[in-house]
Protein backbone atom coordinates (compact mmCIF):
# COMPACT_ATOMS: atom_id res chain seq x y z
CA UNK A 1 0.00 0.00 0.00
CA UNK A 2 2.03 2.89 -1.31
CA UNK A 3 0.67 6.14 0.07
CA UNK A 4 1.51 9.07 -2.11
CA UNK A 5 3.74 10.78 0.33
CA UNK A 6 6.38 8.91 2.26
CA UNK A 7 7.42 10.62 5.47
CA UNK A 8 9.81 8.74 7.72
CA UNK A 9 8.44 10.61 10.69
CA UNK A 10 4.82 9.80 10.34
CA UNK A 11 3.25 6.82 12.02
CA UNK A 12 -0.44 6.09 11.60
CA UNK A 13 -2.43 6.31 14.80
CA UNK A 14 0.08 8.33 16.80
CA UNK A 15 -1.73 11.59 16.26
CA UNK A 16 -4.98 10.04 17.42
CA UNK A 17 -3.36 8.59 20.53
CA UNK A 18 -1.94 12.00 21.36
CA UNK A 19 -5.35 13.57 21.15
CA UNK A 20 -6.73 10.76 23.30
CA UNK A 21 -3.98 11.38 25.81
CA UNK A 22 -4.76 15.06 26.04
CA UNK A 23 -8.46 14.31 26.34
CA UNK A 24 -7.84 11.91 29.21
CA UNK A 25 -5.71 14.49 30.94
CA UNK A 26 -8.05 17.41 30.60
CA UNK A 27 -11.61 16.09 30.51
CA UNK A 28 -11.85 15.07 34.17
CA UNK A 29 -10.67 18.51 35.22
CA UNK A 30 -13.05 20.22 32.87
CA UNK A 31 -15.95 18.11 34.08
CA UNK A 32 -15.23 19.00 37.69
CA UNK A 33 -15.01 22.63 36.73
CA UNK A 34 -18.30 22.45 34.87
CA UNK A 35 -20.11 20.75 37.73
CA UNK A 36 -18.77 23.31 40.16
CA UNK A 37 -21.07 25.73 38.45
CA UNK A 38 -24.06 23.43 38.83
CA UNK A 39 -27.12 25.29 39.97
CA UNK A 40 -28.47 22.34 41.89
CA UNK A 41 -26.92 20.45 44.77
CA UNK A 42 -26.77 17.35 42.69
CA UNK A 43 -23.51 15.95 41.55
CA UNK A 44 -25.26 13.81 39.02
CA UNK A 45 -27.41 16.05 36.95
CA UNK A 46 -26.37 19.38 35.63
CA UNK A 47 -29.21 21.80 36.09
CA UNK A 48 -27.98 25.17 35.07
CA UNK A 49 -25.24 27.64 35.67
CA UNK A 50 -24.74 29.18 39.06
CA UNK A 51 -22.07 30.67 41.27
CA UNK A 52 -23.70 29.42 44.44
CA UNK A 53 -21.09 26.87 45.35
CA UNK A 54 -18.32 29.39 45.06
CA UNK A 55 -20.27 31.63 47.36
CA UNK A 56 -20.82 28.68 49.66
CA UNK A 57 -17.10 28.13 49.90
CA UNK A 58 -16.66 31.60 51.24
CA UNK A 59 -19.71 31.95 53.47
CA UNK A 60 -21.23 28.50 53.87
CA UNK A 61 -21.07 26.02 56.71
CA UNK A 62 -17.60 24.79 55.94
CA UNK A 63 -16.25 28.15 55.00
CA UNK A 64 -14.47 28.85 58.25
CA UNK A 65 -12.63 25.58 58.04
CA UNK A 66 -11.61 26.15 54.44
CA UNK A 67 -10.62 29.72 55.06
CA UNK A 68 -8.28 28.75 57.82
CA UNK A 69 -6.91 25.89 55.75
CA UNK A 70 -6.33 28.20 52.79
CA UNK A 71 -4.65 30.75 55.00
CA UNK A 72 -2.35 28.07 56.39
CA UNK A 73 -1.57 26.75 52.95
CA UNK A 74 -0.63 30.10 51.48
CA UNK A 75 1.28 31.20 54.52
CA UNK A 76 3.35 28.05 54.52
CA UNK A 77 3.79 28.09 50.76
CA UNK A 78 5.09 31.64 50.68
CA UNK A 79 7.57 31.13 53.48
CA UNK A 80 8.66 27.68 52.37
CA UNK A 81 9.15 28.84 48.79
CA UNK A 82 11.12 31.88 49.89
CA UNK A 83 13.43 29.96 52.16
CA UNK A 84 13.81 27.04 49.77
CA UNK A 85 14.55 29.33 46.82
CA UNK A 86 17.16 31.23 48.78
CA UNK A 87 18.89 28.06 49.87
CA UNK A 88 18.60 26.64 46.37
CA UNK A 89 20.06 29.77 44.76
CA UNK A 90 23.07 29.68 47.05
CA UNK A 91 23.48 25.97 46.48
CA UNK A 92 23.21 26.35 42.73
CA UNK A 93 25.86 29.06 42.80
CA UNK A 94 28.11 26.77 44.75
CA UNK A 95 27.54 23.80 42.48
CA UNK A 96 27.61 25.52 39.10
CA UNK A 97 30.18 28.19 39.83
CA UNK A 98 32.25 26.46 42.44
CA UNK A 99 34.53 24.40 40.31
CA UNK A 100 34.99 20.71 40.62
CA UNK A 101 35.30 19.05 43.99
CA UNK A 102 35.30 15.51 45.12
CA UNK A 103 31.96 15.47 46.83
CA UNK A 104 30.17 16.98 43.89
CA UNK A 105 28.09 14.05 42.74
CA UNK A 106 27.28 13.24 46.34
CA UNK A 107 26.24 16.82 46.87
CA UNK A 108 23.92 16.67 43.91
CA UNK A 109 22.57 13.37 45.18
CA UNK A 110 21.80 14.96 48.52
CA UNK A 111 20.05 17.91 46.93
CA UNK A 112 17.86 15.69 44.78
CA UNK A 113 17.26 13.15 47.56
CA UNK A 114 13.66 14.25 48.15
CA UNK A 115 12.95 13.59 44.48
CA UNK A 116 14.28 10.07 44.53
CA UNK A 117 12.65 8.87 47.72
CA UNK A 118 8.96 7.94 47.44
CA UNK A 119 6.92 10.64 49.05
CA UNK A 120 5.36 8.38 51.63
CA UNK A 121 8.76 7.31 52.87
CA UNK A 122 9.76 10.94 53.29
CA UNK A 123 6.51 11.53 55.13
CA UNK A 124 7.09 8.69 57.54
CA UNK A 125 10.72 9.61 58.10
CA UNK A 126 9.91 13.25 58.79
CA UNK A 127 7.18 12.29 61.21
CA UNK A 128 9.55 9.98 63.03
CA UNK A 129 12.17 12.70 63.16
CA UNK A 130 9.89 15.20 64.80
CA UNK A 131 8.63 12.57 67.15
CA UNK A 132 12.11 11.59 68.20
CA UNK A 133 13.07 15.10 69.19
CA UNK A 134 9.65 15.63 70.72
CA UNK A 135 8.92 18.53 68.42
CA UNK A 136 5.23 19.19 68.61
CA UNK A 137 3.37 18.73 65.38
CA UNK A 138 1.78 21.79 63.88
CA UNK A 139 2.39 24.53 61.41
CA UNK A 140 6.09 24.63 62.17
CA UNK A 141 6.60 20.98 61.36
CA UNK A 142 4.73 21.38 58.11
CA UNK A 143 6.83 24.39 57.25
CA UNK A 144 10.14 22.69 57.96
CA UNK A 145 9.17 19.61 55.96
CA UNK A 146 8.06 21.74 53.04
CA UNK A 147 11.25 23.76 52.99
CA UNK A 148 13.26 20.57 52.73
CA UNK A 149 11.48 18.98 49.83
CA UNK A 150 10.96 22.24 47.94
CA UNK A 151 14.70 22.77 47.67
CA UNK A 152 15.30 20.41 44.74
CA UNK A 153 12.27 21.79 42.88
CA UNK A 154 13.66 25.29 43.15
CA UNK A 155 17.19 24.11 42.51
CA UNK A 156 16.69 22.48 39.12
CA UNK A 157 15.47 25.45 37.06
CA UNK A 158 17.91 27.78 38.81
CA UNK A 159 20.89 25.56 38.18
CA UNK A 160 19.80 24.95 34.61
CA UNK A 161 19.59 28.64 33.95
CA UNK A 162 22.89 29.37 35.65
CA UNK A 163 24.63 26.81 33.51
CA UNK A 164 23.32 28.61 30.47
CA UNK A 165 24.90 31.89 31.52
CA UNK A 166 28.53 32.26 30.64
CA UNK A 167 30.69 33.35 33.53
CA UNK A 168 32.47 35.80 31.27
CA UNK A 169 30.16 38.55 32.50
CA UNK A 170 31.23 38.06 36.09
CA UNK A 171 34.85 37.86 35.04
CA UNK A 172 34.45 41.13 33.15
CA UNK A 173 32.93 42.68 36.24
CA UNK A 174 35.84 41.55 38.39
CA UNK A 175 38.22 42.85 35.79
CA UNK A 176 36.51 46.18 36.33
CA UNK A 177 37.26 46.10 40.07
CA UNK A 178 34.04 44.53 41.35
CA UNK A 179 34.40 42.22 44.33
CA UNK A 180 33.09 38.70 44.06
CA UNK A 181 30.08 39.61 46.11
CA UNK A 182 29.34 42.55 43.85
CA UNK A 183 29.78 40.36 40.81
CA UNK A 184 27.27 38.01 42.31
CA UNK A 185 24.65 40.53 43.34
CA UNK A 186 24.98 42.99 40.50
CA UNK A 187 25.69 40.68 37.58
CA UNK A 188 24.77 37.07 38.17
CA UNK A 189 21.63 37.53 40.23
CA UNK A 190 19.86 39.87 37.78
CA UNK A 191 20.72 37.58 34.87
CA UNK A 192 19.39 34.65 36.81
CA UNK A 193 16.15 36.31 37.82
CA UNK A 194 13.92 34.39 35.39
CA UNK A 195 15.31 31.11 36.70
CA UNK A 196 14.89 32.20 40.28
CA UNK A 197 11.33 33.30 39.71
CA UNK A 198 10.64 30.04 37.92
CA UNK A 199 12.09 28.11 40.82
CA UNK A 200 10.13 30.13 43.31
CA UNK A 201 6.84 29.55 41.57
CA UNK A 202 7.58 25.86 41.28
CA UNK A 203 8.43 25.57 44.96
CA UNK A 204 5.33 27.56 45.81
CA UNK A 205 3.03 25.29 43.91
CA UNK A 206 4.68 22.13 45.19
CA UNK A 207 4.21 23.35 48.73
CA UNK A 208 0.66 24.47 48.13
CA UNK A 209 -0.32 21.19 46.55
CA UNK A 210 1.39 18.81 48.88
CA UNK A 211 -0.81 16.28 50.62
CA UNK A 212 0.98 13.21 51.85
CA UNK A 213 3.84 14.74 53.75
CA UNK A 214 1.62 17.46 55.13
CA UNK A 215 -0.96 14.92 56.22
CA UNK A 216 1.62 13.02 58.21
CA UNK A 217 3.31 15.85 60.01
CA UNK A 218 0.49 18.25 60.60
CA UNK A 219 -0.84 16.92 63.84
CA UNK A 220 -4.50 16.98 64.85
CA UNK A 221 -5.39 20.64 64.97
CA UNK A 222 -4.01 22.00 61.74
CA UNK A 223 -5.37 21.72 58.24
CA UNK A 224 -4.01 22.89 54.94
CA UNK A 225 -6.17 23.21 51.89
CA UNK A 226 -5.32 19.77 50.47
CA UNK A 227 -5.82 17.98 53.78
CA UNK A 228 -9.09 19.82 54.35
CA UNK A 229 -10.31 18.87 50.91
CA UNK A 230 -9.27 15.27 51.45
CA UNK A 231 -11.11 15.11 54.73
CA UNK A 232 -14.23 16.52 53.09
CA UNK A 233 -14.02 14.12 50.16
CA UNK A 234 -13.92 11.17 52.51
CA UNK A 235 -17.39 12.16 53.54
CA UNK A 236 -18.58 12.36 49.97
CA UNK A 237 -18.01 14.66 47.05
CA UNK A 238 -20.14 17.75 47.34
CA UNK A 239 -20.34 20.60 44.89
CA UNK A 240 -18.51 23.02 47.18
CA UNK A 241 -15.56 20.65 47.07
CA UNK A 242 -15.62 20.93 43.34
CA UNK A 243 -15.76 24.68 43.59
CA UNK A 244 -12.68 24.76 45.78
CA UNK A 245 -10.95 22.26 43.56
CA UNK A 246 -11.67 24.36 40.51
CA UNK A 247 -10.32 27.45 42.20
CA UNK A 248 -7.17 25.68 43.23
CA UNK A 249 -6.88 24.24 39.76
CA UNK A 250 -7.25 27.63 38.15
CA UNK A 251 -4.72 29.11 40.52
CA UNK A 252 -2.14 26.42 39.74
CA UNK A 253 -2.58 26.88 36.01
CA UNK A 254 -2.14 30.62 36.31
CA UNK A 255 1.04 30.15 38.33
CA UNK A 256 2.48 27.66 35.86
CA UNK A 257 1.65 29.86 32.90
CA UNK A 258 3.33 32.82 34.53
CA UNK A 259 6.35 30.68 35.30
CA UNK A 260 6.47 29.53 31.70
CA UNK A 261 6.29 33.01 30.24
CA UNK A 262 8.80 34.39 32.69
CA UNK A 263 11.36 31.80 31.68
CA UNK A 264 10.60 32.33 27.98
CA UNK A 265 11.11 36.07 28.34
CA UNK A 266 14.38 35.36 30.04
CA UNK A 267 15.53 33.31 27.08
CA UNK A 268 15.18 36.25 24.75
CA UNK A 269 17.45 38.48 26.77
Amino acid sequence: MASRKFDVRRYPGFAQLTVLCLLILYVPLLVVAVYSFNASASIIVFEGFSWRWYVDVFVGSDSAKFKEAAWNSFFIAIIAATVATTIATLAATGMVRGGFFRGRTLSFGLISLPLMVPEIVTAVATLIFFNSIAFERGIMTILLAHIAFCIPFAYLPIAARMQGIEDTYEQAAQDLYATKRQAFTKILLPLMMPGIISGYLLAFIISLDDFIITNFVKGAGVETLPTAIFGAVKQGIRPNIMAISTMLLGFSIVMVTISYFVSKRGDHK
Partner: protein
Amino acid sequence: MAEPEVYAIDVQNAVKRYGEFVALKKISLSIRDNEFFTLLGPSGCGKTTLLRMIAGFEEVTEGEIYLYGEEIENQPPFKRPVNTVFQNYALFPHMTVRENVAFGVEMLGKSVPESMQRADEMLELVQLTQFSSRKPSQLSGGQQQRVALARALAPQPKVLLLDEPLSALDLKLRKAMQLELKHLQRETGITFIFVTHDQEEALTMSDRIAVMSDGEVQQLGNAVDIYERPKNRFVADFIGETNLIDVEVTSRDQDRVLCQFKNGLTLTCDAVDGIGIGSRGHISIRPERMKMRSEKVDDENWQGKVVENVYVGTDVQSIVALQNDMHLTLRTQNSDTGKAMIFEPGTDVFVDVEVGSARLLAD
Protein backbone atom coordinates in the same frame (compact mmCIF):
# COMPACT_ATOMS: atom_id res chain seq x y z
CA MET B 1 23.72 1.29 -30.90
CA ALA B 2 21.21 -0.80 -32.78
CA GLU B 3 18.73 -1.84 -30.05
CA PRO B 4 16.85 0.74 -27.96
CA GLU B 5 18.76 1.16 -24.74
CA VAL B 6 17.09 0.56 -21.38
CA TYR B 7 18.35 3.25 -19.10
CA ALA B 8 19.30 2.53 -15.52
CA ILE B 9 17.49 5.68 -14.41
CA ASP B 10 15.26 7.61 -16.74
CA VAL B 11 13.91 10.86 -15.36
CA GLN B 12 11.18 12.40 -17.46
CA ASN B 13 9.95 15.95 -16.97
CA ALA B 14 10.41 15.81 -13.23
CA VAL B 15 9.24 18.88 -11.37
CA LYS B 16 9.54 19.50 -7.62
CA ARG B 17 7.58 22.26 -5.93
CA TYR B 18 7.54 23.23 -2.29
CA GLY B 19 4.47 25.45 -2.20
CA GLU B 20 5.48 28.50 -4.24
CA PHE B 21 9.11 27.58 -4.53
CA VAL B 22 10.19 25.44 -7.50
CA ALA B 23 13.22 23.36 -6.62
CA LEU B 24 13.37 21.39 -9.86
CA LYS B 25 12.11 22.81 -13.11
CA LYS B 26 11.24 20.00 -15.52
CA ILE B 27 14.32 17.82 -15.50
CA SER B 28 14.81 15.04 -18.00
CA LEU B 29 17.84 12.81 -17.71
CA SER B 30 18.86 9.39 -18.89
CA ILE B 31 21.49 7.56 -16.92
CA ARG B 32 23.03 4.49 -18.48
CA ASP B 33 23.72 1.05 -17.20
CA ASN B 34 27.18 0.57 -15.64
CA GLU B 35 27.81 4.31 -15.61
CA PHE B 36 29.43 6.60 -13.06
CA PHE B 37 27.11 9.57 -13.35
CA THR B 38 27.55 12.79 -11.39
CA LEU B 39 25.12 15.54 -10.50
CA LEU B 40 27.27 18.62 -10.07
CA GLY B 41 26.29 22.07 -8.93
CA PRO B 42 26.42 24.70 -6.19
CA SER B 43 24.31 24.28 -3.06
CA GLY B 44 20.64 24.92 -3.66
CA CYS B 45 20.78 23.86 -7.30
CA GLY B 46 18.49 20.88 -6.74
CA LYS B 47 20.97 18.05 -7.15
CA THR B 48 20.26 16.55 -3.73
CA THR B 49 16.53 16.99 -4.26
CA LEU B 50 16.77 15.02 -7.48
CA LEU B 51 18.79 12.30 -5.80
CA ARG B 52 16.30 12.01 -2.97
CA MET B 53 13.48 11.79 -5.48
CA ILE B 54 15.19 8.83 -7.06
CA ALA B 55 15.71 7.28 -3.63
CA GLY B 56 12.09 7.89 -2.65
CA PHE B 57 12.42 10.45 0.14
CA GLU B 58 10.99 13.32 -1.85
CA GLU B 59 7.65 13.21 -3.55
CA VAL B 60 7.67 13.90 -7.29
CA THR B 61 5.34 16.84 -7.89
CA GLU B 62 5.15 16.16 -11.61
CA GLY B 63 6.88 13.75 -13.94
CA GLU B 64 8.03 10.15 -13.87
CA ILE B 65 11.08 8.20 -12.88
CA TYR B 66 11.92 4.82 -14.40
CA LEU B 67 14.34 2.26 -13.04
CA TYR B 68 15.36 -0.11 -15.80
CA GLY B 69 12.02 0.49 -17.45
CA GLU B 70 9.92 0.19 -14.30
CA GLU B 71 8.07 3.24 -13.03
CA ILE B 72 9.08 3.94 -9.44
CA GLU B 73 8.18 7.50 -8.50
CA ASN B 74 5.15 6.37 -6.48
CA GLN B 75 6.90 3.60 -4.59
CA PRO B 76 8.05 4.11 -1.01
CA PRO B 77 11.83 3.87 -0.55
CA PHE B 78 11.76 0.44 1.01
CA LYS B 79 10.25 -0.97 -2.16
CA ARG B 80 12.84 0.48 -4.55
CA PRO B 81 15.91 -1.62 -5.29
CA VAL B 82 18.18 1.42 -4.97
CA ASN B 83 20.40 2.17 -2.01
CA THR B 84 21.87 5.40 -0.69
CA VAL B 85 25.15 6.39 0.90
CA PHE B 86 24.15 9.33 3.09
CA GLN B 87 26.22 12.44 3.60
CA ASN B 88 26.59 11.91 7.33
CA TYR B 89 26.69 8.12 6.83
CA ALA B 90 23.66 7.46 9.10
CA LEU B 91 25.20 4.31 10.55
CA PHE B 92 22.97 2.76 13.23
CA PRO B 93 24.81 3.62 16.45
CA HIS B 94 23.50 0.73 18.52
CA MET B 95 24.50 -1.96 16.00
CA THR B 96 27.97 -3.28 15.25
CA VAL B 97 29.60 -2.62 11.91
CA ARG B 98 28.73 -6.10 10.72
CA GLU B 99 25.09 -5.75 11.82
CA ASN B 100 24.90 -2.43 10.02
CA VAL B 101 26.17 -3.88 6.77
CA ALA B 102 23.90 -6.93 7.08
CA PHE B 103 20.78 -4.87 7.79
CA GLY B 104 19.51 -4.33 4.26
CA VAL B 105 20.13 -7.93 3.29
CA GLU B 106 18.20 -9.11 6.33
CA MET B 107 15.32 -6.76 5.52
CA LEU B 108 15.09 -8.33 2.09
CA GLY B 109 14.24 -11.62 3.73
CA LYS B 110 17.52 -13.43 3.97
CA SER B 111 18.20 -15.36 7.15
CA VAL B 112 20.47 -13.82 9.74
CA PRO B 113 23.44 -16.15 9.10
CA GLU B 114 23.16 -15.54 5.36
CA SER B 115 23.06 -11.79 5.77
CA MET B 116 26.01 -11.86 8.13
CA GLN B 117 27.96 -13.84 5.59
CA ARG B 118 27.17 -11.33 2.89
CA ALA B 119 28.19 -8.56 5.29
CA ASP B 120 31.54 -10.24 5.81
CA GLU B 121 32.07 -10.40 2.06
CA MET B 122 31.34 -6.71 1.69
CA LEU B 123 33.56 -5.78 4.60
CA GLU B 124 36.39 -7.64 2.96
CA LEU B 125 35.75 -5.71 -0.24
CA VAL B 126 36.23 -2.41 1.59
CA GLN B 127 39.00 -3.83 3.73
CA LEU B 128 37.37 -3.36 7.11
CA THR B 129 37.09 -6.97 8.24
CA GLN B 130 38.97 -6.39 11.48
CA PHE B 131 36.44 -3.76 12.55
CA SER B 132 33.32 -5.83 12.06
CA SER B 133 32.54 -6.18 15.78
CA ARG B 134 33.08 -2.55 16.64
CA LYS B 135 30.42 0.10 17.00
CA PRO B 136 30.40 2.91 14.40
CA SER B 137 31.36 5.53 16.98
CA GLN B 138 34.67 3.72 17.45
CA LEU B 139 35.68 4.19 13.81
CA SER B 140 37.31 7.13 12.07
CA GLY B 141 35.44 9.23 9.53
CA GLY B 142 37.02 7.50 6.57
CA GLN B 143 36.26 4.07 7.99
CA GLN B 144 32.65 4.99 8.70
CA GLN B 145 32.34 6.11 5.13
CA ARG B 146 33.52 2.74 3.88
CA VAL B 147 31.04 1.00 6.18
CA ALA B 148 28.24 3.15 4.77
CA LEU B 149 29.39 2.12 1.30
CA ALA B 150 29.51 -1.55 2.18
CA ARG B 151 26.07 -1.34 3.78
CA ALA B 152 24.57 0.23 0.68
CA LEU B 153 26.19 -2.27 -1.68
CA ALA B 154 25.42 -5.39 0.34
CA PRO B 155 21.80 -5.78 -0.84
CA GLN B 156 23.01 -5.63 -4.45
CA PRO B 157 20.96 -2.63 -5.53
CA LYS B 158 20.35 -1.90 -9.16
CA VAL B 159 21.58 1.66 -8.71
CA LEU B 160 23.73 3.19 -5.97
CA LEU B 161 23.10 6.77 -4.89
CA LEU B 162 25.83 8.75 -3.18
CA ASP B 163 24.97 12.07 -1.52
CA GLU B 164 28.22 14.06 -1.18
CA PRO B 165 29.78 11.15 0.68
CA LEU B 166 33.31 12.53 0.65
CA SER B 167 32.60 16.05 1.85
CA ALA B 168 33.54 15.33 5.46
CA LEU B 169 36.94 13.83 4.66
CA ASP B 170 40.25 15.62 4.54
CA LEU B 171 41.95 16.23 1.21
CA LYS B 172 44.32 13.28 0.99
CA LEU B 173 41.70 10.79 2.16
CA ARG B 174 39.25 12.33 -0.24
CA LYS B 175 41.51 11.82 -3.21
CA ALA B 176 42.17 8.24 -2.19
CA MET B 177 38.44 7.54 -1.82
CA GLN B 178 37.71 9.06 -5.21
CA LEU B 179 39.90 6.47 -6.87
CA GLU B 180 38.51 3.71 -4.70
CA LEU B 181 34.93 4.60 -5.61
CA LYS B 182 35.74 4.69 -9.28
CA HIS B 183 37.40 1.31 -8.97
CA LEU B 184 34.45 -0.08 -7.04
CA GLN B 185 32.02 1.03 -9.69
CA ARG B 186 34.03 -0.65 -12.39
CA GLU B 187 34.28 -3.83 -10.40
CA THR B 188 30.64 -4.13 -9.40
CA GLY B 189 29.21 -2.85 -12.67
CA ILE B 190 26.43 -1.08 -10.74
CA THR B 191 25.40 2.38 -11.91
CA PHE B 192 26.60 5.01 -9.42
CA ILE B 193 24.79 8.34 -9.20
CA PHE B 194 27.08 10.73 -7.37
CA VAL B 195 26.17 14.17 -6.03
CA THR B 196 28.86 16.76 -5.36
CA HIS B 197 29.58 20.49 -5.50
CA ASP B 198 33.29 19.92 -6.09
CA GLN B 199 33.89 20.21 -9.80
CA GLU B 200 37.35 18.75 -9.69
CA GLU B 201 35.93 15.65 -8.02
CA ALA B 202 33.29 15.39 -10.72
CA LEU B 203 35.81 15.67 -13.50
CA THR B 204 38.04 13.03 -11.94
CA MET B 205 35.49 10.32 -11.36
CA SER B 206 32.62 10.60 -13.78
CA ASP B 207 31.72 8.97 -17.03
CA ARG B 208 29.18 11.74 -17.54
CA ILE B 209 28.30 14.85 -15.63
CA ALA B 210 25.06 16.82 -15.36
CA VAL B 211 25.88 20.38 -14.34
CA MET B 212 22.92 21.85 -12.48
CA SER B 213 21.96 25.26 -11.28
CA ASP B 214 18.70 26.78 -10.13
CA GLY B 215 16.75 23.56 -10.55
CA GLU B 216 17.77 22.99 -14.16
CA VAL B 217 20.35 20.91 -15.98
CA GLN B 218 22.71 23.41 -17.60
CA GLN B 219 24.75 20.88 -19.50
CA LEU B 220 25.11 17.13 -19.75
CA GLY B 221 28.21 15.49 -21.11
CA ASN B 222 31.49 13.82 -20.26
CA ALA B 223 34.35 15.62 -18.56
CA VAL B 224 36.01 16.77 -21.76
CA ASP B 225 32.76 18.11 -23.21
CA ILE B 226 31.91 20.04 -20.08
CA TYR B 227 35.32 21.53 -19.66
CA GLU B 228 36.37 22.21 -23.22
CA ARG B 229 33.00 23.05 -24.70
CA PRO B 230 30.85 24.73 -22.03
CA LYS B 231 27.46 25.63 -23.38
CA ASN B 232 26.73 28.68 -21.29
CA ARG B 233 28.26 31.16 -18.96
CA PHE B 234 27.32 29.31 -15.81
CA VAL B 235 29.02 26.08 -16.85
CA ALA B 236 32.09 27.87 -18.10
CA ASP B 237 32.39 29.79 -14.86
CA PHE B 238 31.56 26.97 -12.49
CA ILE B 239 33.93 24.40 -13.97
CA GLY B 240 37.53 25.34 -13.58
CA GLU B 241 38.76 28.83 -14.14
CA THR B 242 38.06 30.89 -17.17
CA ASN B 243 38.24 34.36 -18.64
CA LEU B 244 34.85 35.69 -19.61
CA ILE B 245 34.81 38.53 -22.14
CA ASP B 246 31.78 40.53 -23.14
CA VAL B 247 31.53 40.48 -26.96
CA GLU B 248 29.37 41.34 -29.93
CA VAL B 249 29.29 39.19 -33.06
CA THR B 250 30.13 41.43 -36.01
CA SER B 251 30.53 39.13 -38.98
CA ARG B 252 30.45 35.52 -40.04
CA ASP B 253 32.45 33.50 -42.51
CA GLN B 254 31.07 29.96 -42.94
CA ASP B 255 31.55 28.33 -39.54
CA ARG B 256 33.74 31.02 -38.04
CA VAL B 257 32.56 34.29 -36.56
CA LEU B 258 34.31 37.48 -35.68
CA CYS B 259 33.68 38.82 -32.23
CA GLN B 260 34.40 42.34 -31.11
CA PHE B 261 35.34 43.25 -27.58
CA LYS B 262 34.25 46.41 -25.85
CA ASN B 263 37.74 47.81 -26.06
CA GLY B 264 37.99 47.26 -29.77
CA LEU B 265 40.00 44.06 -29.81
CA THR B 266 38.73 41.18 -31.92
CA LEU B 267 38.88 37.40 -31.98
CA THR B 268 37.75 34.73 -34.40
CA CYS B 269 36.12 31.63 -33.02
CA ASP B 270 33.76 28.79 -33.90
CA ALA B 271 30.21 29.75 -34.70
CA VAL B 272 27.46 28.67 -32.32
CA ASP B 273 23.88 28.11 -33.36
CA GLY B 274 21.53 30.71 -32.11
CA ILE B 275 24.09 33.45 -31.80
CA GLY B 276 23.89 35.46 -35.00
CA ILE B 277 25.35 38.70 -36.25
CA GLY B 278 24.62 41.57 -33.95
CA SER B 279 24.05 39.34 -30.87
CA ARG B 280 25.83 39.97 -27.65
CA GLY B 281 27.38 37.16 -25.68
CA HIS B 282 30.48 36.07 -23.87
CA ILE B 283 33.68 34.38 -24.91
CA SER B 284 35.23 31.92 -22.52
CA ILE B 285 38.96 31.30 -22.74
CA ARG B 286 40.67 28.96 -20.25
CA PRO B 287 43.82 30.46 -18.71
CA GLU B 288 46.04 27.60 -19.84
CA ARG B 289 45.06 28.01 -23.48
CA MET B 290 46.77 31.37 -23.88
CA LYS B 291 50.47 32.10 -24.18
CA MET B 292 52.56 35.20 -23.68
CA ARG B 293 55.05 36.01 -26.40
CA SER B 294 57.67 38.69 -26.69
CA GLU B 295 56.72 39.29 -30.33
CA LYS B 296 53.56 39.15 -32.31
CA VAL B 297 53.14 35.76 -33.98
CA ASP B 298 49.60 36.12 -35.23
CA ASP B 299 47.38 38.92 -36.46
CA GLU B 300 44.95 38.39 -33.67
CA ASN B 301 47.52 38.58 -30.86
CA TRP B 302 46.77 41.28 -28.33
CA GLN B 303 49.27 43.64 -26.86
CA GLY B 304 49.41 43.98 -23.12
CA LYS B 305 51.54 44.42 -20.02
CA VAL B 306 52.20 41.85 -17.31
CA VAL B 307 50.74 43.10 -14.05
CA GLU B 308 51.48 40.29 -11.61
CA ASN B 309 52.76 36.73 -11.43
CA VAL B 310 51.40 34.33 -8.78
CA TYR B 311 53.30 31.15 -8.05
CA VAL B 312 50.96 28.20 -7.34
CA GLY B 313 53.42 25.34 -7.36
CA THR B 314 52.55 23.50 -10.56
CA ASP B 315 51.84 26.65 -12.55
CA VAL B 316 52.43 30.32 -12.58
CA GLN B 317 49.33 32.44 -12.84
CA SER B 318 49.90 35.69 -14.69
CA ILE B 319 47.63 38.70 -14.87
CA VAL B 320 47.98 40.69 -18.05
CA ALA B 321 46.44 44.10 -18.66
CA LEU B 322 45.22 44.80 -22.18
CA GLN B 323 44.01 48.13 -23.48
CA ASN B 324 41.20 49.92 -21.68
CA ASP B 325 41.86 48.22 -18.37
CA MET B 326 40.74 44.78 -19.48
CA HIS B 327 42.56 42.08 -17.52
CA LEU B 328 43.21 38.48 -18.51
CA THR B 329 44.38 35.59 -16.32
CA LEU B 330 46.82 33.18 -17.88
CA ARG B 331 48.33 29.99 -16.57
CA THR B 332 51.72 28.73 -17.65
CA GLN B 333 53.13 25.43 -16.55
CA ASN B 334 56.12 25.67 -14.28
CA SER B 335 58.35 23.53 -16.50
CA ASP B 336 61.53 24.42 -18.40
CA THR B 337 59.58 25.10 -21.59
CA GLY B 338 56.94 26.95 -19.68
CA LYS B 339 59.35 29.17 -17.81
CA ALA B 340 60.52 30.64 -21.07
CA MET B 341 57.06 32.10 -21.52
CA ILE B 342 56.80 33.79 -18.16
CA PHE B 343 57.73 37.45 -18.01
CA GLU B 344 58.46 39.90 -15.26
CA PRO B 345 55.74 42.30 -14.23
CA GLY B 346 55.91 45.45 -16.28
CA THR B 347 57.04 43.72 -19.44
CA ASP B 348 55.16 44.31 -22.68
CA VAL B 349 53.90 41.05 -24.11
CA PHE B 350 51.64 39.71 -26.78
CA VAL B 351 48.81 37.35 -25.80
CA ASP B 352 48.40 34.45 -28.20
CA VAL B 353 45.17 32.46 -28.00
CA GLU B 354 45.28 28.81 -29.05
CA VAL B 355 43.20 28.16 -32.11
CA GLY B 356 39.76 26.77 -31.31
CA SER B 357 40.04 27.27 -27.58
CA ALA B 358 37.80 30.30 -27.32
CA ARG B 359 34.18 29.33 -26.79
CA LEU B 360 31.34 31.62 -27.68
CA LEU B 361 28.58 31.31 -25.10
CA ALA B 362 24.98 32.27 -24.86
CA ASP B 363 24.30 33.90 -21.52
